[in-house]
Each structure stands twice: as C-alpha cells, then as structure tokens.
C-alpha cells in the first residue's frame, strides 16, 4: 500500500475517543498543532504549528464514533509568510471497538496510488515504509 499506516489501541470506548478526534480543543492537545476544524463533510480547517507554519484542510467524511477523513490542501504557509507546495494527502482515522478498548487506525495516503505493479518505480519502497 502506498500510504503511511499506523494503529494504536486505547483503553476507552469509541464513544469516549470520538471527541478527541472531533473537538478542536481536544485535537489541539495531541495533534502537535492548534487545530481549528469544522467537523462535517466539506468543513474547512486550519492547523497551526508552534513553529509558525499553517496548513489548511478540508473534511471529506464523518461517521460518528467510527470514521473521520480529511484532506490536506496542497500547500502550507511558512512562518515567514511564504508558501510551500506539499502533496495533498488524505488522512483517514477509523475507530473499531476491540476487547479492552478501541483500535485507532490512521492511514495517510498519497494523492494517488502508483498502481498495483510494484516493479522498481517506488511503490515497493513506499509500501515497506508504510507498513
């Protein structure tokens, strides 16, 4: 898979975890950035990092207590006021109830997949990093 994929099991129910993903005040506690996010499909967001960079995002999908998807816009604003182009990756966070808590899975995917045939075009390398 041409994506970064991470997962963690938390000792809480999906209902308890969901606000941590959707309340900007709570998101800001763990995301590493001050988050301003309108959590509904089409909602806009801005993530502001302590170093002064800012990155906008758009919410793509919301399934309460189950799934949140947002897409980074393809640029960020630097502290100096410049702009840097970045891949418009899509972030998908899913919650699954498991014995003892909630499995939180994050997939951040490239704007497109390189295709199923790995050859030596990089798909294989990305896949190794991503899993």
């Amino acid at each position, binding site marked *: 898979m041409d994506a*970064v994929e*991470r*997962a*963690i099991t*938390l*000792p*809480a129910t999906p209902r*308890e*975890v969901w606000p*941590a993903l959707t309340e900007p005040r*709570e998101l800001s*506690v*763990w*995301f*590493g950035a001050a988050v301003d996010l309108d959590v509904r499909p089409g909602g806009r967001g801005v993530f502001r990092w302590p170093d002064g960079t800012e990155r906008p995002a758009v919410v793509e999908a919301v399934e309460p207590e189950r799934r949140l998807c947002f897409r980074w816009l*393809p*640029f960020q604003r630097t502290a100096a006021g*410049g*702009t*840097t*182009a*970045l*891949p418009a*990756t899509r972030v998908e966070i899913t919650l699954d109830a498991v014995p003892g808590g909630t499995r*939180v899975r*994050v997939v*951040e995917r*490239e*704007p*497109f997949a*390189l*295709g199923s*045939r790995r*050859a*030596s*075009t*990089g798909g294989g*390398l*990305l896949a190794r*990093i*991503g899993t």
Partner: protein
Amino acid sequence: MKRAPADRIFTALADATRRQVIRALSEQGPSTATGLAAGLPVTRQAVAKHLGALADAGLVTATRRGREVVYQISPRPLTDVVSWMADLGARWDERLAALRDHVVAARRQERR
C-alpha cells in the same frame, strides 16, 4: 511557490500516462522514446513529451547516445519520497502516543 521535492515528484506522477511511461522504463531498463512507445498505446512524440516532464522532476535522466537519447530511472527522487513518507510516519507515531496520553488522562478525570 516553492515546491518540496516530494510534491514535484507526485505532480509529475499525477498523470496516468506518465506513470505508464515510468513503469515501462522500470521494466525495460534504459530505453529510447521510440523503444518505450512500442509497448505503450501512445505516440513516440507523446512519450518523448512525458519523458521530458519526468526528467524535469528529476525522476529520469537523459543521456545522448549518438543520434538517440536514452532515458533511465533516477533513484534519488524516490529516496526523497521515501524519507518524506518516513517523516510522516514518525509524526503519526508521536501523535498517537499523545492521543493515548490524552484519552487516559481524560478518563481518569471523569472518574474522579
């Protein structure tokens, strides 16, 4: 606008035909535009244009051999993409660890 190396590469690869071209190049090894076009559903001119765009992004290198130009895949930019992906993964590791701390602390508070 300044462009991060990873972004330049993704932009170059955003075109389906260019991905076909680079895949063919990786399978056939160093080739000319004519040689690549033989196995693709596009003209030699189109392949040459795409090879030019891929070369601009640093994904392929062009070497003149007599009257021909031979193209081959350049591994360096893919290393940039891999390091960008690795950086992304490390950030999510940090975030998820912080999320766990936050959720555990929030639950403890609720139980008080």
